[in-house]
């Protein structure tokens, strides 16, 4: 195993210009993998890996978290991925609400949540839809199935976000990224052509990467190779096709339409979110329960998740990192989510 790493390093050295280079790993799972495998230790000094906005929990705006928490207070069964359980809202978290007796249930798959709703017709189940294009089709599937089966006690609070517009906002907002490690599983759905604008409009290349250490290192080599002549390439060809998964895209299109979305750190980005189409509006928890986002607040005081998510600072540079803010007492979501940059840096001692 260690040989391949050394060999990769040789190739990196071969293509390394020596100039400072910033590569952003967009995807939280890449952030995690890089930290878990200790890959930064392999890179030469001048090559920096910057974490991007690819942790779905982290980019969820503060007012959305608070809306979820207040929903829990209304006798509704909150169905959620485990990832959200510990995320602090302004005054509480789902785990604290659950301790108060609110009905909060963790599911591994939205399909299980729908099944639960079907088996418990007296409960009103709201699935909290977070996640990017990887997750969106599975949630769309539940809405279609609920519609077909006429299940009336299931709905989705749609907080989904989509990747391309966010990347563009990042680039426009003047980050000095010279290459992107593009998300592997998002791209399995979207395909890789959605990133073409990066090259066409901004002259920045990127490689859709897998999640093994080898995948990531080879992707970095590919980025370095094309530095002069930026391209969008796929390293993770075994899973990702250029055109993506057309069936999944069709499904998304059928259930959702584009909408604006507010990202922690990045603020409101036009067309970077989804909403449930009118045909399925009875499955839209926002309409069903008249959810008002409690405030316009996007971040918790003092937490610099936003800057971390935009690659403006590294987690270490947040004054709260490792002091007031630790995985046990997280202040921002970047410290809660396993793939939040702050958590990854803290946990794995980077």
């Amino acid at each position, binding site marked *: 195993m260690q040989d391949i790493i050394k060999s990769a390093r040789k190739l990196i050295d071969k293509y390394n210009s020596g100039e400072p280079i910033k590569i952003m790993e967009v995807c939280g799972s890449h952030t995690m993998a890089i930290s878990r495998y200790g890959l930064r230790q392999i890179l030469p000094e001048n090559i920096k890996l910057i974490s991007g906005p690819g942790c779905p929990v982290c980019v969820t705006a503060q007012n959305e978290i608070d809306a979820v928490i207040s929903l829990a207070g209304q006798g509704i069964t909150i169905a959620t991925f485990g990832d959200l359980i510990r995320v602090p809202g302004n005054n509480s978290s789902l785990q604290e609400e659950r301790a108060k007796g609110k009905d909060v249930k963790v599911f591994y*798959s939205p399909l299980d949540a729908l099944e639960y709703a079907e088996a418990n017709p007296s409960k009103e189940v709201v699935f909290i839809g977070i996640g990017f294009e*990887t997750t969106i089709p599975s949630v769309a599937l539940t809405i279609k199935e609920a519609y077909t089966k006429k299940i009336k006690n299931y709905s989705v609070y749609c907080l989904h976000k989509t990747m391309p517009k966010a990347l563009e906002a990042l680039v426009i907002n003047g980050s000095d990224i010279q290459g992107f490690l593009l998300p592997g599983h998002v791209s399995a759905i979207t395909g890789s052509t959605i990133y073409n604008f990066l090259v066409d409009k901004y002259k920045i290349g990127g490689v859709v990467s897998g999640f093994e250490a080898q995948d990531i290192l080879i992707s970095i080599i590919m980025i370095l190779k094309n530095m002069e002549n930026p391209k969008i390439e796929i390293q993770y060809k075994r899973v990702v096709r250029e055109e993506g998964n057309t069936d*999944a895209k069709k499904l998304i299109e059928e259930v959702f339409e584009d909408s604006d979305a507010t990202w922690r750190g990045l603020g409101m980005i036009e067309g970077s979110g989804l909403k449930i189409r009118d045909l399925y509006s009875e499955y839209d928890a926002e309409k069903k329960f008249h959810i008002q986002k409690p405030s316009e607040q996007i971040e918790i005081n003092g937490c610099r998740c936003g800057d971390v998510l935009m690659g403006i600072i590294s987690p270490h540079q947040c004054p709260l990192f490792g002091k007031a803010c630790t995985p046990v007492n997280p202040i921002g979501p970047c410290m809660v989510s396993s793939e939040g940059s702050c958590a990854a840096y803290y946990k794995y001692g980077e």
Partner: protein
Amino acid sequence: MCIAVAQKVVKIDGDVAETELNGLKRRVSISMVPGVKIGDYVMVHAGVAISIVDKETAEEDLKLWKEMEEALRESLE
């Protein structure tokens, strides 16, 4: 984001497949990978197969990694 793991399809029953990897068995929705066949590997995220793993490319990847290792070993000799 988006943890996904490869699983081998061992049984298909309409929109649901039974998958297996290292003795780990799951029931997985395959409604998003309509062409899938028994013996295929699929990437599974949150109970849903999101992509069929291309066997040839996967093997190429493995070969490439092997080659890199060997190249290094030779260069060190």
